[in-house]
């Protein structure tokens, strides 16, 4: 093998003969002075392309340069020349191969680092998706989605990528870099302790993150578990049906994004065909306009005998159809699908503070009988009598608008879409004109102006959960610092006895940076093993195949290795003289 030392000495000697400094020589052949110093110390070999200009600068032949000495004989035989050239090419090739390998290693390590950071970001995103319930319950469902749409698949691919890159980098380094001297496998006890420590830390962090995630999930699901409902009442909360709710409030509730399952009704009087003033027996029917059949808790869609092709959906719209009581249906001898003419009269008050009700004609309309129902007698007692006829709410409202009469709804109740937006909801209702119920202030009117919101249980539970989450979360930065501390202390304690090895590596000629890298890779192998084992164990124990394991693993990896690196750097400051030389 070509002797680097001999080669280096020859360059130095001929350089001195030429009266050149390293810097001057470097400038002439367009390399750095560090490269020249490296060659002269035998620590490297120039690229094959530089040999000729180098020989020219030094005033020697290419053959002399490659042989590392002046050639005395005028000619050398072909075989010797070929041997010299082959050795030089091989030497230069080794350098090139080393540089190429180091680029691959750097690329792989960079990919590995990006992969870990990516995993952490996806982990955080995954938890957010999990909160919204967008994660498929089973892994088998994941295959239906495109891989980039589904966080589980994303994770799997990213995880495979990181493991491959990491394994590739470690393999390349192991093959050619001097990490074998630390012999991870031969330090059985210390290696096992490091792996065990990492497993435990990953398990603990995973438990911590899962605890936060579970509480957040409970909080997100709270509106479903404890739905918050509200209804419009009089100012003192004493009445919630048969009241007068202004049209602007009705419209506000219909338009609000915080209102769900809005149930409204409006009460009227009606007569069939015509009403004769003075003959009030011709105005003896109670008509109710509702926007869905669930307005009454007693009547279900399945209780109604429907005409063919009919169901309760017409109540949401403006079709002139109706549901009649069976008693009325049989009394009048009506048939399903028959059209009946109803004279509608509305209730009004002479002033808003009055409790006395009067009625006036509203509009006469024809309705098609969509069905009849037998359970009118079981109508719930909400200070009103059960209706004889049920028509769509909006049809009645349109009649008011056509006759230019101010519309009032008789009752309104609903659920909140997102109870977690309680404050925004209350602000909006206040802006509409609703007030809070004031039970201590008696109200003898029928004005539906207050909102009674049943949120006590929800608020109490939500506040408790929020407190728990905030308290646990507050520890997060300290937890990360603790992991850094654990990494620092464990490394310091376990590697204390290897300070002499570090000093010895330094004395043999490995610089501090390379020495650091050797031990860092050694520790990284152990830490990654511990993290993978800990993550798998946490998945098995907690049954969560998702984000928390990878997030915990990634965070432990970064924080533990940060502490580990600090400890390594401290240990590498060992004085070689003190560590190795005989005591004076």
């Amino acid at each position, binding site marked *: *093998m070509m*002797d*680097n*030392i001999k080669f*280096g000495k020859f360059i*130095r000697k001929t350089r*001195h003969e030429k009266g050149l400094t390293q810097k001057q020589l470097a400038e002439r052949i367009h390399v750095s002075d560090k490269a020249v*110093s*490296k060659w002269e*110390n*035998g*620590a490297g070999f120039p690229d094959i392309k530089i040999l000729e200009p180098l020989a020219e600068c030094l005033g020697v032949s290419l053959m002399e340069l490659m042989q590392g000495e002046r050639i005395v004989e005028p000619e050398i035989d072909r075989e010797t020349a070929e041997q010299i050239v082959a050795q030089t090419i091989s030497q230069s090739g*080794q*350098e090139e191969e*080393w540089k190429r390998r180091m680029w691959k290693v750097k690329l792989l390590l960079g990919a590995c680092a990006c992969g870990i950071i990516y995993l952490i970001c996806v982990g955080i995103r995954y938890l957010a998706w999990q909160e919204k319930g967008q994660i498929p319950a089973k892994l088998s469902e994941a295959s239906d989605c495109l891989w980039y749409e589904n966080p589980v698949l994303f994770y799997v691919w990213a995880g495979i990528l990181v493991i491959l890159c990491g394994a590739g980098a470690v393999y390349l380094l192991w093959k*050619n870099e*001097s990490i*074998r*001297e*630390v*012999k991870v496998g*031969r*330090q059985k006890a210390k290696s096992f302790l490091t792996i065990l420590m990492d497993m435990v830390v990953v398990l603990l962090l995973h438990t911590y993150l899962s605890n936060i995630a579970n509480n957040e999930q409970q909080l997100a699901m709270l509106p479903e578990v404890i739905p918050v409902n509200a209804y419009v009442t009089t100012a003192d909360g004493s009445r919630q049906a048969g009241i007068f709710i202004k049209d602007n409030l009705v419209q506000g509730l219909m338009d609000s994004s915080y209102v769900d399952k809005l149930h409204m009704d409006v009460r009227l009087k009606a007569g069939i065909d015509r009403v004769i003033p003075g003959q009030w027996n011709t105005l003896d029917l109670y008509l109710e306009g509702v926007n869905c059949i669930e307005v009454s808790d007693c009547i279900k869609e399945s209780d109604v005998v429907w005409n063919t092709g009919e169901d309760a959906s017409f109540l949401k719209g403006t079709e002139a159809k109706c549901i009649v009581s069976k008693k009325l249906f049989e009394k009048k001898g009506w048939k399903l699908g028959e059209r009946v003419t109803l004279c509608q009269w509305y209730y009004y008050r002479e002033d808003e503070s009055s409790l006395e009700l009067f009625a006036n004609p509203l509009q006469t309309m024809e309705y098609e009988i969509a069905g009849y129902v037998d359970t009118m007698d079981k109508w719930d007692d909400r200070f009103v009598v059960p209706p004889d006829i049920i028509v769509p709410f909006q049809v009645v409202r349109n009649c008011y608008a056509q006759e230019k009469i101010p519309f009032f709804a008789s009752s309104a109740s609903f659920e909140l879409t997102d109870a977690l937006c309680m404050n925004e909801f209350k602000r909006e209702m206040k802006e509409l004109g609703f007030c809070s119920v004031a039970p201590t202030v008696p109200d003898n009117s029928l004005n539906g102006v207050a909102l009674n919101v049943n949120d006590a249980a929800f608020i109490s539970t939500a506040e408790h959960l929020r407190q728990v989450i905030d308290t646990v979360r507050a520890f997060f930065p300290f937890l990360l610092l603790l992991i850094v501390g654990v990494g620092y202390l464990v490394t310091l304690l376990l590697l204390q006895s290897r300070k*002499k*090895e570090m000093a*010895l590596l*330094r*004395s*043999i*000629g*490995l*610089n*501090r940076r390379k020495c650091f890298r050797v031990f860092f890779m050694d520790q990284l192998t152990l830490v990654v093993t511990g993290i993978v084992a800990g993550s798998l164990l946490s998945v098995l124990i907690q049954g969560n195949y998702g984000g928390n394991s990878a997030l915990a693993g990634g965070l432990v990896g970064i924080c533990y290795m940060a502490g580990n690196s600090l400890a390594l750097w401290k240990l590498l400051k060992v004085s*070689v*003289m003190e560590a*190795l*030389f*005989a005591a*004076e």
Partner: protein
Amino acid sequence: MGMKMEILRAEHVSYSYLSKYQKVEAVKDVSCSFEKGRFYAIVGESGSGKSTFMSLLAGLDQPCDGTIYVEGEPLCGMDRDAYRLNRAAVVYQAFHLFPLLTAQENVMLPLEFKKMRKKEAARQAKRLLQRMGLESRIYRQFPKMMSGGEQQRVAIARAVAAGGEIILADEPTGNLDSGNEENVVALLKELAHEDGYTVIVITHNQRVADETDHVFCMRDGRMEQVR
């Protein structure tokens, strides 16, 4: 004996350090030179500064004053890690072999640092161990299974493996019996006279000093050439 080239030269080298708030001048204004292919001894009492001076020659620290030259180039201007890898090597009294590497792996280490292929490094390490007179059964043994003499010869093989020119030995026979001591000294002498190494040993042992070509004596940090 022909003219030998100078390889190491110390000019007015001084070194001091702080020890419990007291300044200790370990090396005071030492000037000396060492030639290729010679065997040197530095003798002196404990605390005279021999080991400190040797560590300066090894580039493990820099002198506070003065300069050390390696073939005319100042050591302070070099990459001292590369210097120790390629040109100078240290042999210790306590051998300091890597406990978890075999004898062969210990010798391969500097070669691997120089990016030699594993097979070639293994071949060269075997050759060196043979040269040191070690049996083949030793090659795959761990240091704790070897005798003191065997360990020291492995350490010398490791020092020679990188192909440098200077061997600095700090009390290489301090932990050896007389039989092994003679073997090790003979080996170092052979490396100097036949292989052209500059071998510098620190020793308290007069028998070892007698085997060398030149002797320096250090007293209270100062050096004088005795022979």
